């Protein structure tokens, strides 16, 4: 343990950070994972400035906007992240990514995941879940999308009817809800 005290480098892989969610659950995560969340990183750095001793596992970082169920999924996604942040460089890789995104595409969850990723300023996650959401709603019917997001159709009845007629062809060939 003397090792950690001698090494003040916050990116040392062995260090753990404790995160506290809105429902008061504690998550002990590796520092490398936690540092992906820029909000946590910022908090951590601010804390460090204030009090050098208050570091590592002794600090509990509160995340009042994130539920434990969501955080657990974000952390598991974070752990699966490849080391290099390279863009998919061929079609096969893009297909794999697409499949991977599909796994997260359970209705409702995605909005929570995006919201949390946004709060945590977790860039790769935000990118990934936003794309997953876009993947999910393309080729879906208007009713499905409205229900999915809880959006009320705010068109006047005559406008609504007009769009229905105008784009009647577009309502064919949509995926099963």
């Amino acid at each position, binding site marked *: 343990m003397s090792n950690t005290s001698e090494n003040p480098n916050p990116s040392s892989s062995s260090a753990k950070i404790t995160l506290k969610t809105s429902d008061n659950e504690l998550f002990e995560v590796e520092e490398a994972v936690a540092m992906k969340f820029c909000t946590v990183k910022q908090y951590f750095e601010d804390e460090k400035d204030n009090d050098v001793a208050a570091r590592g596992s002794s600090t509990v970082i509160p995340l009042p906007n994130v539920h434990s169920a969501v955080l657990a999924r974000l952390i598991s996604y974070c752990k699966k992240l490849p080391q290099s942040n390279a863009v998919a460089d061929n079609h096969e890789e893009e297909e794999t990514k697409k499949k991977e995104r599909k796994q997260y595409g359970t209705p409702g969850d995605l909005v929570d995941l995006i*919201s949390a990723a946004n709060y945590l300023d977790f860039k790769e996650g935000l990118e990934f879940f936003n794309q997953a959401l876009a993947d999910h709603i393309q080729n879906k019917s208007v009713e499905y999308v409205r229900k999915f997001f809880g959006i009320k159709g705010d*068109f006047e009845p005559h406008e609504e009817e007009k769009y229905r007629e105008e784009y009647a062809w577009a309502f064919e060939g949509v995926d099963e809800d």
Partner: protein
Amino acid sequence: MQRVRLSSQQASVHKLGDSQITLSPKFRLAVFQSSLLNPSTESELILSGEPLIPGLPDDVALNCLLRLPVESHTDCKAVSKRWHLLLGSKERFFTRRKEMGFKDPWLFVFAFHKCTGKIQWQVFDLTHLSWHTIPAMPCKDKVCPHGVRCVSIPRDGNLFVCGGMVSDVDCPLDLVLKYEMQKNRWTVMNQMITARSFFASGVIDGRIYVAGGNSTNLFELDSAEVMDPVKGSWHPIASMGTNMASYDAAVLNGKLLVTEGWLWPFYVSPRGQVYDPRTNKWESMAAGLREGWTGSSVVVYGHLFVVSEHERMKVKVYYADEDSWEPINGPPLPEQICKPFAVNACDCRIYVVGRNLHVAVGEISRFNQKETSNKKWKFHVQWQVEDAPQIFSDLTPSSSQVLYA
């Protein structure tokens, strides 16, 4: 081939005046009489507190919705007023994408109907692999699909169509059109100083260079000119020093390379000229470069590659130090891709559009040879074919450009 000039008649330059040009309406949205499409309604809708996606801040929701492929817009824009505002026009959608820093490649194919010769642009979304159309070019004259030159400034999402000639009459054009992806609109630009067809073209430091080509008076041109798209006017630059039409051209290391290509019956070696904008001087092209330039060129990894004009050939690369060409590793062009080809590249991908608009995407990778001490890059290509829909079976490509939007 295209430079065999049989016409003995001297035709006058077609100045495309007002009578021949139909400008696309500047405010397409105004045609619809709907309160939804009034831009001021966006702020009203935001003020009314209706979020794009409930539970998400608008910037995050935008970041998601701007990823929706264009083909899903017709459906998705019927969801709510704010969605309609965002997805109802390509102009707004692509402007927002640009603001948010989205940059995906789109392949613009300048094609013509093989029987009627009717020109049209077809646009291939290289991310979602789907085809789209754009408004027709604002030119009433029946322009010959050959001899026109297209250049683009990919990062700005702009492409330019220059010169060419009127169908059936051997008459070059000085017409210049600009298409802007963010506006989904064509604009007629200032004409070139000299009307030309089958000329060399290229973009260096955001400026458009054109050189040589066929002129009105049956002669090939020596002159060259440049346009800064921001300023919009053409200025002459040094003449090439030889009258020549262009078979192909490329921009390599900030210089414009122009070759006339091999001419039947191949008795004489093709001429080639190289322009350096820093010195405003032309010089002769190295013999190996011009003699081996037997197809459409692209520049990838700072190297000049040529896709042969013949089918099922290997791509080759030019080595300046040795003034020689070498075929690159990997398979030849896939057999589904038939002549004629329209070739372009972006990043490390080569796009070859063939007859019926089937597209071959060639992923170029490079590696260093271990056994040799010199730093000579070797290249490898891996092809993937994207079949075009049946409705394109009468289309022949003439040129292709890649734009980011």
